[in-house]
C-alpha cells in the first residue's frame, strides 16, 4: 500500500489526486484493483489517461522475473564465503558464513556465543581485512577481549589497531533503536561505514533475542510484528549489500527438558543456518573446560544434527602452536 501522490507518474497531477481521493481512491493498491471504466466516469477523466497511469504504477510496483542463469552468474560473482577462523565451525558451516544469508548461533549462558562472534569479527577484520559491524545489545562486548584475540594473531601493534578500527560497534538496548540502526544501515550508512578501508562484509547482532524476548507473549501482539520487522530488514540488508548476517539467540527448555533455540517457531524460519552451542556436560558441577560442542540444527547444505567439538581457546592460541593444534583438531573431529 503506497499512498498516491502527485508526480508519482506522468499524468498524475494534483487535481487528479484530489478527484481520486474524493472517489475513495487513496493508494496505489486502490487504483490497481478498481474498475477503470467506472472510475473514469466518476472522476471525469479520460479512460485512456487512467489506463496509462495504471500501467505505469503496475510497472513501478511489480516484481519482475530473473532467469536462473543470470541469478547463478550473479551469485558466483558476488557471494563470498567468510571463514569463521575456526576449522571445526567452518566444517559445520560448509565452509563458512555465506554473504547474503542469516546464520544463527544459539546456546545457553556461557556457551560461547559471544566468543564465537568476537572470533568471527576479529578474523574478518584482521585476516580478511574487511570491515565488520557489531551490534551489541547485551553489553557483553569488551574491546579488551578483541585485543586479546588480535594479540594472539599478531604482535604488530599497528596491525592490531588497524584491525580494531575496522570493527564498528553499535550499542543498542531496545528494539526500536535496533530497528532505527538497521534501517539506517540499510538506507546507505553501510557503505559509509567502510571509509576505513575494506567493505563491510558482516553484520553481527549479539544478541537478537535480548531485545525481542521482553516483547513476546502476553496479550500484546506488537512484539511479533517487531520481530518480523527485524528479520525483514536483516534479510534484505544481507541480500542487497551482500553481507553475512550473524545473530545470536538464547535457548529455552521444552517440556521434555530438551534444549531448543528461543523466540519460537516464527523466528525459526528466518535464519538460513542455525547452530546450537552447548557446554560439554561433565560430572563436576562447575567445569572450566573451554571445549564446546556445536550442533547444526538447520541447514540447506549439510545434513542436520551433525555435531562438532571446538575449543574457545582457539582464538586466543598463539601462532606457534597453531599448526599442531589444527592437526589435533582434525583428528578429533
Amino acid at each position: 500500500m503506497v499512498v498516491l501522490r502527485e508526480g508519482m507518474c506522468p499524468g498524475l497531477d494534483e487535481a487528479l489526486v484530489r478527484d481520486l481521493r474524493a472517489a475513495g481512491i487513496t493508494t496505489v493498491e486502490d487504483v490497481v484493483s478498481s474498475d477503470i471504466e467506472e472510475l473514469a466516469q466518476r472522476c471525469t477523466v479520460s479512460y485512456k489517461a487512467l489506463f496509462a497511469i495504471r500501467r505505469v504504477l503496475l510497472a513501478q510496483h511489480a516484481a519482475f522475473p530473473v532467469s536462473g542463469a543470470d541469478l547463478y552468474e550473479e551469485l558466483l560473482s558476488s557471494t563470498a564465503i567468510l571463514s569463521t577462523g575456526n576449522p571445526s565451525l567452518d566444517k559445520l558451516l560448509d565452509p563458512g558464513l555465506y554473504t547474503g544469508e542469516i546464520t544463527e548461533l544459539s546456546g545457553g549462558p556461557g556457551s560461547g556465543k559471544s566468543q564465537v562472534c568476537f572470533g568471527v569479527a576479529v578474523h574478518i577484520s584482521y585476516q580478511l581485512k574487511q570491515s565488520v559491524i557489531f551490534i551489541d545489545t547485551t553489553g557483553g562486548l569488551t574491546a579488551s577481549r578483541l585485543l586479546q584475540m588480535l594479540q594472539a594473531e599478531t604482535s604488530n601493534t599497528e596491525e592490531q589497531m588497524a584491525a580494531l578500527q575496522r570493527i564498528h560497534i553499535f550499542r543498542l538496548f531496545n528494539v526500536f533503536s535496533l530497528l532505527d540502526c538497521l534501517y539506517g544501515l540499510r538506507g546507505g550508512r553501510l557503505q559509509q561505514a567502510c571509509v576505513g578501508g575494506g567493505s563491510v562484509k558482516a553484520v553481527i547482532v549479539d544478541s537478537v533475542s535480548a531485545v525481542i524476548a521482553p516483547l513476546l507473549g502476553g496479550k500484546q501482539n506488537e512484539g511479533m510484528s517487531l520481530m518480523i520487522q527485524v528479520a525483514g530488514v536483516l534479510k534484505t540488508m544481507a541480500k542487497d549489500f551482500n553481507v553475512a548476517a550473524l545473530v545470536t539467540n538464547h535457548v529455552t527448555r521444552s517440556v521434555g527438558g530438551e534444549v531448543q533455540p528461543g523466540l519460537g517457531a516464527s523466528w525459526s524460519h528466518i535464519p538460513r543456518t542455525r547452530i546450537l552451542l552447548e557446554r560439554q556436560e561433565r560430572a563436576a558441577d562447575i567445569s572450566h573446560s573451554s571445549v564446546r560442542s556445536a550442533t547444526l540444527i538447520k541447514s540447506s547444505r549439510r545434513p542436520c544434527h551433525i555435531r562438532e567439538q571446538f575449543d574457545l581457546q582457539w582464538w586466543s592460541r598463539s601462532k606457534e602452536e597453531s599448526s599442531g593444534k589444527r592437526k589435533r583438531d582434525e583428528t578429533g573431529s
Partner: protein
Amino acid sequence: MQRSVFSLSLSPSVKRKLVNAGFQFTNDLLHLKPVQLSKEATLSQLEALEVLQAVRKEGGGGDAGASSSLTALDLLQKEQDLRRIVTFSSQLDAALGGGLPVGKTTEICGAPGVGKTQLCLQLAVDVQVPQCFGGIGGQVVYIDTEGSFLLQRVVDIATAAVQHCSLLVEDDEQRVAMTTFTVETILSNTFLVRCHDYVELLAELHLLPDFLSDHPRVRLLVIDSVAFPFRQHFEDLSQRTRLLNGLAQQLIAMATSHNMAVLMTNQMTTRLRGGQSQQVPALGETWGHAPTSRLLLHWAGSRRLAAIFKSPDHTGATVQYQITSEGFRDIDQSEQTHTVQSTASQRDTGH
C-alpha cells in the same frame, strides 16, 4: 526497501490509526504537514507532530544513529579509561581482571550464607575508596529487596577499609583524601532503597535514571537480591520471564550510559535432570543471559570458593576466599587448611 510505520517507536494505537488511513510506509509521511496528517489519520495534532518527528529523525538525520557508532579502538580506549572496583581480595581481582568491571552487569549466585551479601556490602564500600588509593571514589545505590542490609556490617567493613587506607598514606594528596574518607562519609555516600516486591523494584528502576543524572558520581548499583521478589507472587511464569528480560535490558542500558557497575545477587535452585539433582542459579535459563558475567559462590567442605561461570573477557577460574570481621578477603596462602574462624582471628591480631 521502505520502512513500515510499525517499526517506529510510537504507541500501538497511533500506528493502527496511521495504517487505517493508508499510511503503511514512512515514505508516505515525509511530505506531510502535521495539520494535514492529523486530519487524514484522525490523530490529535500533538500525536501527528510526534509521528512526523519520529519519521524525520529516521529518514533525514544521518547523525542520529551514526553518533552511537564507534570503532572497537574507541571502545578500547574508553574501557582503559574506566577503572575497575577492587574487591579487597587480590585473587578474585586477578580472576576478574582487576576487579568488578564498570559499565557491565555482574551477577553473584550462591547458596544461603555463602557470602553474597557480604561481597555486595564490601563492594559498596570499595567503590568509595579515593582515586589516589587505586579506587574510583564513587557513590553507591543499594537496592535491598530481602531486608538483609545490615548497617553494623557496613560500619565494620568501612572501618576496616578506612584503617587499611590510612596505613598506606604516603604523600600529601593521600593525606588530604583521607580527611574525606571516613566511616561517616562512606555511609552518607550510600543510598539505600528498600523494595518489598517486584512492582516496587521495577518502579524504582524506572525512576533511577533521573536519580543518576542528579548524582553523577554513582558508580555502583547493587540489587540484593533480584531473585527474591521474582520468586513469589507469580502464577504466570512467562510474564515473569518477560519482565526479567526487560529489567535486564534496562540495567545494561543504565550501566552503559552512566558508566556504572551493576551488581545483582541471585539464589540457587535445584534442577532435576535424569534422576540427578543439580544446583543451578534461580530465575530460569533465559535469565542466565542477562548478566554480562556471572560469579558462582559455593562451599567445598568448609572452604568458600568463588568461580567465574560466565565472562566475555576471562576464562573460568576458581578462587578461595574468606569472610572475616573486616569483610571479604583472600585466604592466607599458608593457612589454606585452617578453618575460616581461626584465620580470621589471626588476621585480626596481625593488624
